[in-house]
């Protein structure tokens, strides 16, 4: 261990430290959306194969998280939010994170190919590549649009779940992808508006700092407007139905109203009520995604009893 480490030299990383490399909180969203993608697909999957598939997708996502932490260790130690991660805090060596990331990526992709099909495995491999290489190595430090394009990595899991069941790609899986893809920017920028970030110290361009907070508010509104047709469009596909449509209409109206409220505000108003509106919209964005995917799940469950769907 290097002598500049914050930990004493006798520290042995335990399993918890290695598990933290896999970004467990991100993994939970991946597991949920991948599971919905798998369950709403028209073809049934054997429960054990379904379980192994979700495990592979979760481990693959975790592996890309470990690779991201390996690459970003230099900037992670400069930011308060990330300084306690396993590598900057000295609990895990960078080389270990790289090894774990590569090994788990290989295991997850090969096991998914053997358990299900090559398309699902290819999509998982592409997701890992996209997050670890395209987002972490290129986009993140290069453009304030990093979160827009990088959001694709978080949008793939339901598409992989769908591919596990059907072996293909269809309009339903593309729209599930598009829903998360379009949702990520307004969700993230609403957060960026009220969290005091130190991305500037680390040299990471964030929209709030490169283009200002007014531009960010405008972006939140524009991306939320673009999100609406995607969410409603998913409702008229084979996996949608009246319940999904009702949920989508309510949640989109709620999110749009929030985005419009943000757009009309200025810094003085934000300071005055301690970012109450922005915090509220951020919470709505969380409910938004959860409600849409729960509604899809409900439609799929009802379809088994001859209900649900159009």
């Amino acid at each position, binding site marked *: 261990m290097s002598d500049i480490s914050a930990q004493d030299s*006798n520290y042995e990383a335990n399993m918890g430290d290695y598990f933290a490399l896999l970004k467990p909180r991100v993994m939970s969203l991946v597991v949920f959306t991948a599971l919905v993608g798998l369950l709403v697909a028209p073809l049934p999957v*054997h429960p054990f194969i379904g379980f*192994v598939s979700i495990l592979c997708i979760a481990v693959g996502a975790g592996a890309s998280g470990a690779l991201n932490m390996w690459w970003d260790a230099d900037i992670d130690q400069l930011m308060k939010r990330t300084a306690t991660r396993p590598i900057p805090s000295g609990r895990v060596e960078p080389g270990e994170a790289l090894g774990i990331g590569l090994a788990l990526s290989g295991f997850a992709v090969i*096991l998914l190919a053997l*358990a299900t099909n090559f398309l699902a495995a290819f999509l998982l491999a592409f997701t890992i590549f996209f997050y670890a290489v395209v987002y972490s190595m290129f986009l993140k430090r290069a453009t304030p649009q990093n979160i827009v394009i990088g959001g694709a990595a978080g949008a793939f899991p339901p598409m992989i779940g769908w591919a596990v069941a059907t072996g293909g790609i269809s309009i339903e899986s593309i729209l599930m992808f598009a829903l998360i893809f379009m949702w990520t920017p307004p969700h993230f920028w609403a957060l960026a508006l009220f969290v005091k970030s130190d991305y500037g110290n680390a040299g990471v361009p964030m929209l709030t700092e490169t283009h200002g907070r007014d531009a960010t508010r405008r972006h939140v509104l524009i991306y939320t407007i673009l999100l609406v047709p995607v969410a409603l469009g998913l409702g008229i596909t084979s996996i949608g139905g009246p319940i999904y449509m009702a949920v989508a209409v309510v949640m989109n109206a709620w999110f749009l109203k929030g985005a419009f409220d943000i757009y009309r505000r200025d810094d003085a108003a934000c300071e005055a009520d301690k970012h109450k509106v922005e915090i509220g919209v951020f919470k709505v964005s969380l409910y938004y995604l959860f409600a849409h995917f729960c509604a899809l799940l409900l439609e799929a469950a009802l379809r088994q009893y001859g209900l649900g769907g159009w």
Partner: protein
Amino acid sequence: MAIKVEHEVHGRRKNRNYGVLMLLIGFVGIVFGLTVVKVLQLGDARQFETFDHVARPQIVPEEGTE
């Protein structure tokens, strides 16, 4: 003299070693479970034997016997 292994590194690494043990057991369980599910999904029992990718003339039914 009885062989005793008592180095402090064993104590420090206990958590990690048990973790790796659990992961290996889990991995073996997954591969075994997948094998069982995949083989049972073949349906026709005769396919179990042909699954080894080796030509076995003795299990190919002769013409006119079926």
